[in-house]
């Protein structure tokens, strides 16, 4: 029995364990406070819902418009600068949303240099001219689209690159033009990957607190924190978070339903690639513009501003920045390895035995991504502290010294929280990588008597290498930027660069936060470059 279902059982246990924090939060629904809900319903809930929906719609559109065309152009066409643009387009990923928001506010606010310059030039005063109000819902949509599109870009590009070229060529030989082949074949085939990227971006949007709070946009998430901090009502905050989750589940189900029984693996063995479509003249210029605009606005402008602040205006970082950088790096690194390993095991278990319990529990384990980090942190804290208390009781009953808070007071809690929060990221990438490998390979391997784990190691992992690298990269960068869970769960005297940047920024010393912010970006560049090098080695175009 266990032998046949070993992997499934193992996966279910892991996934259940990872769902624990989400279950803790959802269980708060059992103690709902009618009066507070009535009040929220009467006053602000409508605003929260409308703003969150508009934000989702806006960011969804934004990341698709920025992510898909750039992925297509850099993977299918050739134009000047394509090679370096193809990795540079990832760079905005390294900038946390709230930091890009602070940076652009510094630039575009009424009192900032751009508007001051306009006023000096024209002699106009406040209210005499129209200027984009950065601190608004629209501003939040632009900011988040600029730093979240790389999720879509990465996944879509990986899909385009892994697509068997044969399907496109068959399309062309059937009389499709290249562009027609893209619309009718490549895009639909890349759909699982694009949707995976999109849903990551949207979940991140729902979980964001820093940006919307700074811009004064009331969303569901600011509502959660208002309830937690303002009302001092953790239970009601958790209930709001659970409703947020219900919404996410609905989205996921809708997406599943929309593609029902379609399968996306390619039947072809060939890994050969067609020649890139050469672009010249106006077309090439347009491609360059389309691919450099997201890079300029999402990275070059904010990074330059941060660098300027860091070098000329901020208090310099002390030597403790080495410790900060090391803490951030090692946590992100470890969390990436853990999350991706678990994601591979889970996705593979689902592939070998796509039975309902396995699928359900894995889906649940991924929901942590849609919950704000603070809420996840509390969901992590409660079961871990419970385990710690049991452990302490056990030690004391044996007459030993209390071990203290071994789990909830150490980095274990943080790594657990990161895994819960970012598993969805790893799952998204790994699953879309796995889906592209045709099942007949598994059948062949099994019929030769190999066990699933050997197959996984020998066949699947090598075949989906770029998906795995992508997953590692995104989790790494996400953990690097992660703030709220780190803030609550970190042990004594332990800081990361994100914590440092946040503390200075929330003390309204934006300029002094710049050196730590720029460090996040720099450390985030390491895996981006590594990923690029690795993909470039494989595809020497």
């Amino acid at each position, binding site marked *: 029995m266990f032998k046949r279902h070993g992997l499934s059982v193992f996966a279910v246990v892991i996934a259940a364990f990872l769902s624990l924090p989400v279950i803790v939060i959802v269980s708060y629904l059992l103690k709902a406070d009618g009066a507070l809900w009535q*009040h929220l319903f009467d*006053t602000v809930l409508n605003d929260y819902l409308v703003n969150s929906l508009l934000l989702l719609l806006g960011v969804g559109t934004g990341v698709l418009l920025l992510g898909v065309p750039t992925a297509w152009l850099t993977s299918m066409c050739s134009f000047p600068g394509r090679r370096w643009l193809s990795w540079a387009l990832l760079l905005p990923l390294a900038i946390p949303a709230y930091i890009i928001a602070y940076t652009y*506010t510094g630039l575009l*606010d*009424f*009192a900032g240099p751009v508007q001051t310059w306009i006023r000096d030039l024209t002699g106009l005063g*406040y209210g005499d001219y129209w200027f984009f*109000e950065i*601190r*608004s819902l629209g501003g939040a949509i632009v900011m988040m689209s600029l730093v979240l599109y790389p999720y879509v870009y990465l996944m879509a590009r990986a899909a385009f690159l892994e697509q068997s070229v044969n399907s496109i060529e068959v399309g062309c030989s059937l009389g499709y033009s290249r562009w027609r082949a893209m619309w009718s074949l490549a895009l639909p085939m890349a759909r699982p990957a694009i949707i995976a990227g999109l849903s990551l971006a949207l979940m991140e949007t729902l979980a964001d607190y820093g940006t919307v*709070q*700074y*811009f*004064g946009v*009331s969303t569901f998430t600011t509502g959660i*924190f*208002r309830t937690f*901090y*303002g*009302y*001092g009502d953790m239970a009601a905050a958790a209930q709001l978070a659970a409703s947020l989750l219900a919404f996410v589940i609905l989205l996921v189900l809708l997406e599943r339903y929309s593609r029902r029984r379609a399968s996306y693996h390619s039947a072809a063995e060939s890994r050969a690639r067609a020649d890139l479509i050469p672009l010249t003249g106006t077309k090439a210029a347009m491609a360059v513009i389309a691919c450099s605009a997201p890079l300029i606005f999402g990275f070059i402008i904010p990074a330059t501003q941060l660098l300027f602040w860091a070098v000329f*205006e901020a208090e310099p970082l002390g030597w403790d920045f080495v410790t900060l950088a090391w*803490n951030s790096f*090692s*946590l992100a*690194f*470890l969390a990436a*390895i853990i999350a991706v390993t678990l994601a591979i095991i889970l996705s593979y278990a689902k592939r070998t035995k796509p039975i309902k319990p396995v699928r359900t529990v894995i889906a649940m384990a991924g929901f942590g991504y849609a919950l704000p980090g*603070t809420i996840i*942190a*509390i969901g992590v*804290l409660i079961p871990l*502290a419970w385990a*710690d208390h049991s452990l*302490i009781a056990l030690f004391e009953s044996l007459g030993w010294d*209390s071990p*203290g*808070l071994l789990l*909830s*007071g*150490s*980095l274990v809690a943080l790594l657990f929280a990161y895994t819960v929060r970012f598993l969805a990221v790893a799952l998204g990438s790994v699953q879309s990588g796995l889906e592209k490998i045709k099942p007949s390979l598994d059948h062949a391997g099994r019929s030769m008597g190999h066990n699933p784990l050997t197959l996984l190691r020998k066949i699947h992992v090598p075949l989906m290498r770029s998906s795995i*690298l992508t997953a590692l990269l995104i989790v790494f960068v996400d953990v690097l930027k992660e703030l*709220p869970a780190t*803030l*609550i769960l970190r*042990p*004594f*005297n*332990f*800081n990361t660069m994100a*914590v440092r940047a946040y*503390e*200075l920024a*929330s*003390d*309204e010393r934006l*300029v002094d936060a710049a050196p730590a912010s720029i460090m996040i970006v720099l450390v985030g560049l390491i895996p981006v470059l*590594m990923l690029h090098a*690795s993909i470039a080695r494989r595809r020497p175009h």
Partner: protein
Amino acid sequence: MIPMNLINTFILPAVAASLLTATTAQAGDIVNVYSARKEALIKPLLDEFSATTGIKVNLITGKADALLKRLQVEGSATPADLFITVDVGRLHRAKEAGVLKPVSLPSLEKRIPKALRDSESYWYGLTLRARPIIYAKNRVNPDELSTYEALADAKWKGRICLRSSQSVYNQSLVAATIDAIGAEATQDWMASMINNLAKAPSGGDTDQLKAVSAGVCDVTIANTYYLARLINSSKEAEQSVASQLAVFWPNQQGQGALGRGAHFNVSGAGFTKYGKHPKQAQILLEYLVSATAQAWYADINNEYPVVAGVEVSEALKGFGVYKMDPIDLETLGENNRQAVQLMDRAGWR
């Protein structure tokens, strides 16, 4: 790909080491602090404390409510000895949540005025943070200003900037107003004041000050240390913002609520119920109200000392002396929830 030997020989041991060391905040001559005060605004003092007393201080900073939740969940196993917040509402919440213990210390009671500590000795105030009206010197005649309540007047239409109601400082201002003029009048006041806003609330206190100086609006309500920081800034742009602004102390004259005095909040600390180092925690708290520490707060962060006779910074002196609202600070904590509800109803985002 990533070389495995790098992971095995370098990264894993290092991370394992930090995993182990991170849990050992238990024994020895140490004190463990959970602080809602940001690291930059407390660490230098703690370092100084360690240097003079030889007691090592372990520190976690974070949001008050999150740290409070952590204290609650950790229960009797908590390593924390001292809980520090920047708002009395959160101290009150901690007391209500049962994570603090009353410790009556004559050494502290002698130095901290009765109004600035808990009547049952659950917490002690460490600094004062005043929240007056700040206005543009060239566009507002101080005679136009009188009370917080008067900002509801139609003459301020389109001339006010306010931070959002997410700010705990605004919540505590409203909590105090409820106490002074009642819930209904407070809601009406806020509704009219919100109606007078020049722009939707966003950003922090400093952003409001910049908006006033840039001409977006004429008055705002902000904590004085943000203005003092701009005054003391080494950056010309910030000094120029500050040079256009002045402090108006509201509610100084008249009877009852009208003349109750300007709103202020305290940052403070309480002993945790299950702290393992009460002695060291006591020495630390005594240090935080010593003349040295109090002068540091006044000097570095421009907060008002709780201890009488401590010299304040030049910037603070420039703001003048003012009458403080003599409200029982616990009321701020008790009214916080109601304050947020009224803010929701009045449409204060």
